[in-house]
């Protein structure tokens, strides 16, 4: 996983999978990397081939973290399989999703 701090936004990329085995670490690493002034989180999902309900839980937790700082969580370029899970669970209504 790669994280890049830029002004008020933390950009996350190179996340191969987001499931039960790594979702807690994923959430905790991103929270720990946020600086005091950062309120937005952008997660590039273009390389994420797999997300399960635990991965969704981590995204919801990060969404709440960003909202508590008056910012937003943005998901970039999810693959069709991941987009399907976001839509099935209606998460596409709460996350800002930028399609590739």
């Amino acid at each position: 996983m790669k994280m890049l701090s830029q002004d008020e936004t933390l950009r996350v990329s190179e996340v191969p999978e987001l499931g039960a085995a790594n979702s807690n670490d994923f959430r905790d690493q991103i929270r720990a990397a946020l600086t005091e002034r950062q309120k937005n989180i952008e997660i590039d999902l273009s390389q994420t081939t797999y997300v399960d309900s635990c991965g969704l839980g981590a995204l919801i937790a990060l969404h709440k973290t960003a909202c508590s700082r008056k910012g937003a969580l943005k998901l970039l370029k999810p693959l069709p399989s991941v987009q399907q899970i976001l839509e099935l669970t209606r998460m596409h209504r709460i996350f800002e999703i930028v399609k590739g």
Partner: protein
Amino acid sequence: MPEAASPSRSAVLRLTLACQFGEVRRAARAVCEFLRERGCGAEQLMDCQLALVEACNNAINYAGKSASGDPIVVEANCGPEDIELRIIDHTPGFEWPAQVKLPDSETEHGRGLFLIQSVMDHADYVRAPGGNTLVLRKKRRATE
């Protein structure tokens, strides 16, 4: 991990995995490969993988200390008409709700059963003293 595979029209793969999250993806990949080799399409593979992972994650979450040493058994039966997945756990089990609903959008847990029911055609959870069995079925369609 694989124990048996039949070359007949209806082939069965049986896997035994430790009650750990790290084992689940490995088992799901093995089941996907097994189904792919038998001509299942990409959409079916994706759905079966998701349902299997959610079922195994659920079994691990419910294991508690008493059952965490017991393995989870996964059986994949690929017939000409449908795919059947069986997930056998040794947890206290739970009551499968009559109607599976999504939790509130801010809730971080509780979407596994909803996803299973959304992507499979049939789901039945049978509790028994020797082990609980979740039976999942999906109709096969032409390879995409």
